[in-house]
């Protein structure tokens, strides 16, 4: 079903909206949450919370990109859950997103200057400056939280190429952040 049709269902307050959202975006949303949270159970709860949030935010809002809209919701929910859990229990796994941590080494001297907004801008600029293919790989991996084999199959290239490209992109991102003085 097309995004606008699903949004229409939300506007009509049809419960089918949740079912169709789950069919189309359920897997992606769970992966996105799992990329931060290590618990399958937590991720499923985050997905359900996302559906509820989407239900509550529509019809006031009418997202053009439903997938992106839902992704942002689940990221916020997952971060909140992560923080809550982190307070309870130090540590935790963060799977896919943790790959990007190699771009941000521990440097006590700059930690205080860590600028979240600038990081977001730099990340956006980095993504936009990449070739279409590289951008697709990066976004599929770190925004849509797809696994390597799915990315390779979707784009039509080998898994090793995806892995190599992402590895090089992480190095390039790190160099960019260093150049921008964000590290």
């Amino acid at each position, binding site marked *: 079903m097309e995004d606008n049709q699903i949004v229409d269902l939300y506007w009509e307050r049809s419960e089918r909206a949740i079912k169709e959202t789950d069919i189309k975006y359920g897997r992606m949303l769970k992966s996105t949450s799992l990329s931060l949270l290590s618990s399958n159970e937590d991720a499923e709860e985050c997905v359900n919370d996302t559906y509820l949030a989407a239900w509550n935010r529509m019809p006031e809002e009418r997202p053009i990109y439903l997938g992106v809209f839902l992704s942002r919701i689940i990221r916020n929910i997952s971060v909140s859950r992560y923080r809550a859990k982190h307070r309870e229990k130090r540590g935790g796994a963060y799977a896919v997103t943790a790959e990007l*941590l190699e771009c941000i080494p521990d440097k006590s001297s700059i*930690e205080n200057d860590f600028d*979240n907004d600038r990081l977001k801008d730099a*990340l956006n600029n980095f993504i936009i400056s990449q070739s279409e293919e590289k951008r697709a790989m990066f976004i*599929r991996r770190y*925004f849509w939280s797809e696994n390597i084999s799915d990315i390779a199959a979707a784009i039509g290239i080998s898994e090793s190429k995806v892995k190599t490209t992402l590895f090089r992109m992480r190095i390039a991102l790190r160099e960019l952040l260093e150049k921008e003085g964000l590290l």
Partner: protein
Amino acid sequence: MKESKNEKLLVLYEAIGEIDPHVATAALKYKHKTNIKSIRLVIVLAACICILAATLIVGMNLALGGAKGEDPGDKNLAEDAENALTEEAEDVTLATDGTQPEWGVPDIKKDLENLLNESKAVMTAIDDSEVDTVLYNGRLSLMLSDGAKLYFKAFENVENAEALKDSLSVSGELLGGAETLKYKVWISFGDGRVVTPYLEYSEENIFYGILFDYSPKVLPSDEFVTELINLFENN
């Protein structure tokens, strides 16, 4: 330290979520594209190489063909064969006088061997699997085996084939001889019929296996050698 790192992780996680929605959505639509320009370039280059190669091959063939046409070797071949026949006649005379040729074999056989040996230069070596193709190529052809390789040469002059057939008919009987002929020769009429120096043509005397049922202890007839020379001379 770890806490700080976790905080950065969350910032990154959120930052990625803030990327342009259009860019994020477009990424899902991307499919790997083969570089059409590169393919076109490769095709153009391949075409150029083919044309160049074809030009070179045609040029070389023309050059070789021209050289062959001017090669006095072909004309000399017939002359040599003719001379050999004349010398053979003299040798026969010598033999009548009781003098044996020094090689101990009839001259006509040696002449034929010389002729065929020289003929190989203008013949095409073929594999066993190509024999049937030659038998049905629609042209009069000489097939020759030197014991190691098989050769063939197609002749344009079909009339000589009939003459050759007649020559064989004349010497229809098996021609005796004690020596093993190095060369084995067949004439293919191109329609499946084949004649040998010692057999009249036969509809059945065809195909590879039968062809090689060739008696090595047979001398070619004079008529056969003469017609063979004619074939080379007229082609």
